[in-house]
């Protein structure tokens, strides 16, 4: 029986792009289905009834949801070009930082870029203080990642691994948020290693081919969240 691999995703989502990056790295052919998140398809709701979210990978009719869970499934199913190390301690480390990025970094970055603009009008001074706090928090979080990278070319070592793929939000989307909102976060003076890594990351073929067009993405976020938190 021919193998069937489907990916339900959204063009601008770093989470569904992760799945595509991993499949591309391993040379796995798949069919991509673009979801309109304002009008979710019956298939998506059938394959992910619990969260009703993208991405979902469907392998021979069986669905897997949650991007990091999908990445591990891909690695265990298709053994070429492994994205997780063999050593259990290194694996635990990669999982820890992937979780760190998803649970801490993204929301902090959003807050720094657009936080005080959401919701009701706030007094300018209070918004300024909140904004500075948020920027400081992002800086601390990025410092942890900078330290974790050390002298490695990629988080995965000599080749791109699960953590690099999970860090696509930092490697590409962060730059987009910065430009869309006018807030500078990943500065070269403070984060030279991370900046170098980001440059290398987006040049890897399997990654490059799966990055949404930058201008389109910037326009989308500007449209959705406004002009951002940059000091006016």
């Amino acid at each position, binding site marked *: 029986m021919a193998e069937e691999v489907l990916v339900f995703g959204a063009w601008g989502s770093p989470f569904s792009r992760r799945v595509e990056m991993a499949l591309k790295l391993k040379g796995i052919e798949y069919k991509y289905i673009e979801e309109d998140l304002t009008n979710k398809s019956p298939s998506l709701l059938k394959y992910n009834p619990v969260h009703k979210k993208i991405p979902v990978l469907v392998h021979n009719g069986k669905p897997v949801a949650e991007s990091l869970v999908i990445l*591990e*499934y891909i690695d265990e199913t298709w053994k070429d070009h492994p994205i997780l190390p063999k050593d*259990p*301690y290194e694996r*635990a480390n990669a*999982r*820890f930082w992937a*979780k760190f990025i998803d649970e801490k970094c993204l929301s902090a970055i959003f807050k720094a870029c657009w936080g005080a603009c959401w919701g009701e009008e706030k007094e300018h001074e209070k918004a300024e203080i909140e904004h500075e706090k948020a920027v400081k928090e992002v800086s601390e979080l990025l410092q942890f990642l900078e330290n974790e990278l050390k002298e490695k070319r990629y988080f995965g070592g000599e080749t791109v691994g699960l953590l690099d793929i999970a860090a696509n939000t930092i490697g590409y989307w962060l730059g987009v948020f910065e430009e869309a909102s006018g807030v500078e976060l990943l500065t070269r003076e403070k984060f030279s290693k991370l900046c170098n890594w980001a440059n290398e990351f987006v040049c890897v073929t399997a990654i490059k081919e799966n990055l949404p067009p930058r201008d389109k993405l910037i326009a989308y976020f500007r449209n959705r969240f406004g002009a951002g938190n940059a000091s006016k």
Partner: protein
Amino acid sequence: MAKEVVLLDFWPSMFGMRVRIALAEKGIKYEYKEEDLKNKSPLLLEMNPINKQIPVLIHNGKPVCESLIIVQYIDEVWNDKSPLLPSDPYQRAQARFWADFVDKKVYGASRKVGSTTGEEQEAGKKEFFEILKTLEVELGDKPYFGGETFGYVDLSFITFYSWFHAYEVLGNINIGAECPKIIAWAKRCLQKESVAKSLPDQKKVYEFAAQMRKRFVSE
């Protein structure tokens, strides 16, 4: 040598309990260190500088953090007995999905039940039962989430059972009436020695929770 494996933990933490169960399942001897979360030890801050939280497993001097990551690490290192995750990749993905669901949903809702009042608490209670009912559907007629044997998802969720009595009193709810299958499943898990000896007494947890609630709510 118990010194090889050290667990930094806090007795009522449902996350720490997960690690205790995993270690017990594998028969691993370890040194348990109780942390005072209001006065965290230098060791904890050194071993988990990022989150400064328990549990932390220290294996031969190297720290592993985040309860489910620790459990997977334990399963991979001590892989000669009592597997916690299934061997089939698809089953493993399902197990990871549901443990992630427990992490993302159960804790948040249960906090609202235990630590809030009024409308927020009512919303929390509704959410809590929706989540438990989703888990009940997933459990189905199986004895455990893992199927015939206790596994990763069971381990990730059973630790919340030690807090059920506290939620019931503080939230004025009856979990058994709403979700009898969950209670039946929990009692089945508690027949395992590794689980029974890793979960604290429900009354003690209630006393702790009641004190915590006082800090969040003035009544």
